[in-house]
């Protein structure tokens, strides 16, 4: 077999391959360092981080669904200082790929502050701004469901981040994803990550109450793949900035499909929870799949459909 080129260029960052575990489904990377060689991954999007440490939501935080799951973790995290002084430096010691900080906030000012701290951390390569978390009552998704507020967060973050690409991670729980993505692009975003989870719910019919303690949560898994792919396609064709495609990706075929739709990198989320080896297995499967499809370089297939 001919050697295949899996590398992609993302806002000047050269990724060894497009496969990136999605934020919230891979901890801070370190949790899985003993399970496989993290350097097989093109990048790692770290657990969503707020200014202050957060416990998150009460349990149960997890509900199983057909072809997917609901989570309502509620942004449990140790706070931005622990991220930039402990978690990212510890990961950098063992990991050469792109380290992506995923930043949340409860106000425009908090987003800007957290992103400024991440920008100053030499161990972080890219900043992903989460305006799409469905599991916190204030902030979170509220900033990502309207073009004007998504733009205001983007603009505030853009003003403080001097050194690193800024991606805005968008929610699918909107009527017009393209208008929100374009508002972020116009406000200075370097790229778009989409999609975050869909707001979902399950009821325990024996107990007659919601399975999730917080009643609702974010639905993800293979069931959302066609919806995510459609949104990646729409945004990639409407915007001039790169897209990291995310949503229901579980195998190498899905990575190729996302890239043909317009994604430069592809995030793997819920699948990590059912198979912690999902990402390295996908990376390992890509060369043979590329060969069968007559693809020599992944970079060449981005947005070709």
């Amino acid at each position, binding site marked *: 077999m001919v050697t295949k080129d899996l590398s992609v260029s993302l806002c000047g960052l050269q990724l060894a391959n497009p496969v990136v575990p999605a934020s*919230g*489904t*891979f*901890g801070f990377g370190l*949790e*899985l360092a*003993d*399970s496989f060689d993290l350097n097989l991954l093109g990048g790692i999007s770290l*657990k969503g981080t707020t200014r202050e440490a957060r*416990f*998150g939501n009460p*349990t*149960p*935080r*997890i*509900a*199983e*669904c*057909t*072809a*997917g*799951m609901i*989570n309502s*973790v509620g942004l*449990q995290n140790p706070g931005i200082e622990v991220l930039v002084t402990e978690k990212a430096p510890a990961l950098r010691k063992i990991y050469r790929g792109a380290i992506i900080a995923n930043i949340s906030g409860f106000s425009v000012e908090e987003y800007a502050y957290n992103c400024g701290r991440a920008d100053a951390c030499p161990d972080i390569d890219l900043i992903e701004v989460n305006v799409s978390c469905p599991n916190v009552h204030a902030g979170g998704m509220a900033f990502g469901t309207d073009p004007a507020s998504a733009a205001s967060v983007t603009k505030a973050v853009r003003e403080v981040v001097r050194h690193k690409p800024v991606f805005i991670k968008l929610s699918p729980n909107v009527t017009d994803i393209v208008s929100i993505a374009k508002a972020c692009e116009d406000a200075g975003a370097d790229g778009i990550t989409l999609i975050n989870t869909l707001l979902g719910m399950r009821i325990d019919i024996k107990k007659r109450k919601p399975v999730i303690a917080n009643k609702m949560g974010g639905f993800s*898994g293979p069931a959302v793949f066609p919806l995510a792919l459609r949104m990646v396609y729409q945004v990639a064709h409407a915007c001039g900035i790169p897209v990291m495609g995310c949503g229901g990706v579980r195998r190498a075929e899905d990575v190729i499909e996302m890239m043909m739709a317009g994604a430069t990198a592809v995030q793997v989320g*819920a699948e*990590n*929870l*059912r*198979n*912690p*080896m999902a990402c390295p297995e996908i990376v390992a499967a890509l060369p043979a799949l590329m060969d069968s499809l007559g693809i020599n370089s992944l970079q060449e297939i981005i947005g070709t459909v």
Partner: protein
Amino acid sequence: MQKRIFHIESNDAVARDTFRLVLRTDGPVAVCSGQFVDIDIPGYYLRRPISVSDSLPDGVVLYYKVVGEGTRVLSAMAPGAALELLLPLGNGFDPEKCAAEALLIGGGLGAAPLYLLAKELLAAGKKVTAVLGFNKADEICLIDELKALGVPVHIATMDGSVGTKGFVTDAIAAAKPAFDRFYTCGPLPMMKAVCAALSAPGEVSLEERMGCGAGFCYGCTVQTASGPRRVCADGPVFDKEEVLW
């Protein structure tokens, strides 16, 4: 943590809705008491975490209760069928902290991980007594296996059909076993009552609905005396002082 394929050696009903599952694989298996495995059940998205009841040179013995669709599918699987497991997961009990005499307290299927713990304690030369609680006689399991190890077993049933009528705390009060450390696994209200009744140091095995089962999704975090802890990776076993009832 490893992802490995096991084959079902046996999968038999041993009590009401309760199955004993023996799984074998190629090569050695190393699991400690209190640790668990996460089983991929065909057709279901998330794995099912099940505590290890016994560790074999090339396999594990598990007990599970049919509580929903996934465990129902598992109960219908025949010997020879393949199952993909993640293991070993969780921290496990600490038998070395027992000075000389251990009391094992199980409620329902909480008895399962105590069997392997009993073997580890006995191998270390410790004396072991078990107190097991069940709702009714038809749920009783693992008593003969524990007795075969030479462990005295005291039973409590809620309907009084076997042993002491009432809770495990009633059976402990009646039997007055000597112990310097206790280990408990079972329903939360039972373990809370046990920890309130016993002044000796103790370890508690918690249960929580899990996502990944391996410490990176933060789906099973509980608040403890020393802050947020993941039941799957920081636990499932915690010192009794850590648990905020």
